[in-house]
């Protein structure tokens, strides 16, 4: 079997939707910048690219049509390469990586740009025209449950207290602020015309400030804006190639894709999705959770991240070393490429053996990727 390896990872700066610095930037422009960036940074010959796989959770408006194809034009990829837009909501761009790995395994191409984008400023969550099926709502209201309510449900079922969520959020901001201060994002961020600095990190996040917030989704609830990832604009991209291709062309390998998995769960508990997906992926890799050195666990909400960490018995010292989505932001379609690319580069940076990237998905799913170092 041909193994897939990750040889490049970049992202745009992440900014608050609507009030942030990217509010006036179109999603296709944002995506084109990271696609162009990951290709030129890796030094790959663009003529070898098989396909651009672009994740997007609400592919309409400016990120509509087959936005991947339009982005391939804007990024100057050869017209001979293909382009597909992929939607698995928050798991979209991790799915792009999985699809590339699968294609490489069956010999259907050597090199793929796996990217993701979301402008939550310019295309609202739920899209411009939310049109749920009335019969399905009647039969299964949870099919359309709002994400905030799922975070409340998870908090309740797993007894995650508000204070624990707030401690988790403060820690995420602290880690991200420290990483930024130490220049640890410098090699992953592609500068946009407005700059290269992230906009969502609050270095001064404190327990007192978080405690003062009102519940955001349920007046009797425990989840606030401070313990939810913000609506974010951003894009991320990974370059995924066959191991042979990488070695032949002397591309710098960050990590090998060891195993992947998706798993469904009940939609009203979507935040717990990473647990089943991770267990499947571990089994496929023949590993135990204790074998994993680096973990990127997406922080859609503090409550679900904590619940997953507890259920999987994660060593928190290994989780989200440079902060997570609570601090950095969560541009839905882009997050999968960010955490997978981040896990791969952390594996290299920290000199470790195995890494896990996993996230929950609206509608009740989890997705996971296990990476290993290539010596």
């Amino acid at each position: 079997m041909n193994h897939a390896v990750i040889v490049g990872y970049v992202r745009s700066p992440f900014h608050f939707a609507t009030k942030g610095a990217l509010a006036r930037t179109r999603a296709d422009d944002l995506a084109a910048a990271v696609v162009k960036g990951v290709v030129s940074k890796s030094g790959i010959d663009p003529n070898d690219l098989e396909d651009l796989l672009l994740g997007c959770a609400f592919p309409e408006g400016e990120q509509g049509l087959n936005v991947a194809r339009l982005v391939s034009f804007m990024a100057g990829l050869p017209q001979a390469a293909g382009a597909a837009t992929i939607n698995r909501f928050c798991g979209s761009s991790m799915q792009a990586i999985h699809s590339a790995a699968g294609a490489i395994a069956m010999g259907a191409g050597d090199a793929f740009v796996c990217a993701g984008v979301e402008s939550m400023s310019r295309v609202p969550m739920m899209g411009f025209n939310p049109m749920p099926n009335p019969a399905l709502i009647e039969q299964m209201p949870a099919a359309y449950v709002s994400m905030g309510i799922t975070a409340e449900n998870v908090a309740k079922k797993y007894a995650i207290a508000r204070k624990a969520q707030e401690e988790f959020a403060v820690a995420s901001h602290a880690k991200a602020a420290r990483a930024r201060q130490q220049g640890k994002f410098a090699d992953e961020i592609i500068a946009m015309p407005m700059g290269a600095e992230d906009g969502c990190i609050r270095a001064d996040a404190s327990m007192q400030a978080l405690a003062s917030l009102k519940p955001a989704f349920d007046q009797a609830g425990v989840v606030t804006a401070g313990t939810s990832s913000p609506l974010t604009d951003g894009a991320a991209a990974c370059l995924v190639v066959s191991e042979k291709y990488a070695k032949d062309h002397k591309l710098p390998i960050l990590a090998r894709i060891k195993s992947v998995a998706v798993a469904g769960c009940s939609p009203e508990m979507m935040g717990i999705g990473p647990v089943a997906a991770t267990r499947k992926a571990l089994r496929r890799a023949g590993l135990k959770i204790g074998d994993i050195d680096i973990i990127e666990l997406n922080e859609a909400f503090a409550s679900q991240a904590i619940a997953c960490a507890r259920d999987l018995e994660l060593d928190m010292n290994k989780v989200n070393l440079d902060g997570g989505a609570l601090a950095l932001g969560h541009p839905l379609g882009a997050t999968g490429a960010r955490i997978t690319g981040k896990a791969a580069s952390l594996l290299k940076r920290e000199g470790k053996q195995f890494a896990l990237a996993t996230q929950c998905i609206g509608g009740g799913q989890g997705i996971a990727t296990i990476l290993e170092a290539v010596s």
Partner: protein
Amino acid sequence: MGSGIAAQIANAGVPVLLLDKGDIAKAALERLGKAEPAPLMSRSAAKLIEAGNIEDDLAKLGGVDWIIEAVAERPDIKQELYRKIEPSRKPGSILSSNTSTLPLKMLMAGMPTSIQRDFCITHFFNPPRYMRLMEIVGGPETKPEAMAAITAFADEKLGKVVVKAKDTPGFIANRIGVFWIQAAVNAARNLDLTVDEADAVMGKPIGAPKTGVFGLMDIVGLDLQPHVDASLRMALSKDDAYQSLPSDFPLLTKMITDGYTGRKGKGGFYHLNTAGGKKLKESISLKTGEYAASTPSKLESVDAAKAGLRALVTHKDRGGQFAWAVLSKMLAYAASLVPEIADTAVDVDLAMKAGFNWKHGPFEMIDRLGAGWFAERLASEGVAVPPLLALAAAKGGFYKPTHEGIVQLDADGSYKPITRQSGTLLLSDIKRLATPLARNGSASVWDVGDGVACVEFHSKMNTLDPDSLTMLMQALEIARRGMKALVIHNEGENFSVGANIGLALFAANIGLWPTLDQLIAQGQAVMKALKYAPFPVVGAPSGMALGGGCEVLLHCAAVQAHAETYVGLVETGVGIVPGWGGCKEMLIRHSPGPRDPKGPMPGVMAAFEQISLAKVSKSAAEAKEMKYLRRSDGITMNRDRLLADAKALALKLVAEGYKPPAPIELHLPGPTARAALGLAIDGFARQGLALPHDVVVAGHLADVLSGGATDIVDAVSEDQICDLEKGAFMSLIRTLPTLARMEVMLSTGKPLRN
């Protein structure tokens, strides 16, 4: 105050440069967006103001037509500024001072003729957006063209009542207003009235705002009073009647020292006691200086005033004595000041009405008392009767209605016509001379000339009832039979606060369902007739246009709105949904335009958000942003010009060959949209933003706006949406929480949250 004036100029769509020292203007501009009541009418107005500073930006004055100085009230500071800006000023540009206390001759002493020729005083009242008076004072050298240009601009663009005042201390409004306050404070203390009692008399019963005098001082700022008093005493002659009013008031001095300077300070004659988490209104005792719960006055004279001003001032209780003590002095003083402070009595009346929000000016008050009676009573008390008052007493009053309109008494003893600015047309002037074409208890139809008919609502608060609807229908028939166009306009405080929910509540309480059904059907039929009339129907609102009042405007061919028009569909507040085509029209207006996201949901969601939250615009400009008004609708800054502008718009539409609109068919997603809105409602309920009955009302609204049992491929007619509106209304009016909302609204004027 400079920033407030700048805001009103920007509201008129005119670019303004706001200059101060350093960053002060920049900070003031930022504050404008947050101030309450809002000085700006729209977000776009803010963009017309450019903040700068005197140090760097003087050169920009070269492009400016009118420079308004509003710096500290010191002649040396003002004169230094005039000299400083003179080299940068465009030749022939106009320079004016917003001084309220300094005479023009002092400001112009020693100034070069080039400045004197272009200089006048333009005295605005605070806050400039809401107070209509602007006093204008010219000097001996001032060019008449400059005075005419400023007068026209302030009148037409800024919506001001411009009154020409003489160069005398306090000009007109403050000269009389300060006298009134001082006289009232003294009389209240002498006659042992409480603050609450004094304001109960000196407010509504005399036609002044309910704040009376003590409440007014709280708004203006107590600390201002000694300054104004001192400067007036210094400037006025020794024998001026103001000098005889004692100003010694130890409690006021103590309050100022202790920081009780009024609403801007810790409180004033009134304050809100928030101890214990409750807001308790308290008033101060004029004797002890202690605060106690504010209690409504029980004075009989206040009730007696309903029979007229004379009934008030002749009442035997302390309130009546107080009213006489204050009004006799103030009115005699005003009568003694013409022509010293203004050319005519009508100018004084205009200034007091526009500057102090009085319903009647002093000379109108004298006529209400009876000039002869008033002069006699003054004489009987040994008070000198001013010559002008004696003349009015002999002639039978200051004003008289005639066939040519109202005439006013001239100093030569003859009556002369009151000239209105050209371009103003007042329905009240027309009404004095004509009989209505049709009339019932709630509305009338008038011929306003040039083939235009005008429907006037005149029920209580201009609520709409079956009579109002009948009269609208009758007006359409009258116009169809021989007129060119119809205007809907009135001079009430509010265009219409909506349908008469008292009637609806009454009918619901006794189960008169067919009557309610008929009320909706009649309203829908009238709105449809307005919309599809073969001639243009132009709405001309001012003040609130809510609920049914808003629906009337939505069905007009065009609207010419006064800038201060507050529009909204507020039905959900009383537990119902718009039933006279309001839902239908907002669906049409929110249909995506070329720049909006496409698809069937954005329009439905926008209409849902606006109606479910009962959003009301804070100006006509904002009503356009909210689509209650069309982009093409007109806005008139000066209320006195509204009817003339509306008439002109109607005639313009006629001249352009007006054709009624073609009926519109909508494609609505039906149950799919209902499901999407249902998700949103559930979310609001979970977040605690929607209470249980809000959920019910919003659900019915969602039924209507989604188009009912339709499908996206089917066309829905206007009539079908009207049927849905009626169905939703009839369901909601049968629920107890809706009736509870109506009851509370009727009894308290405030919405019930249930």
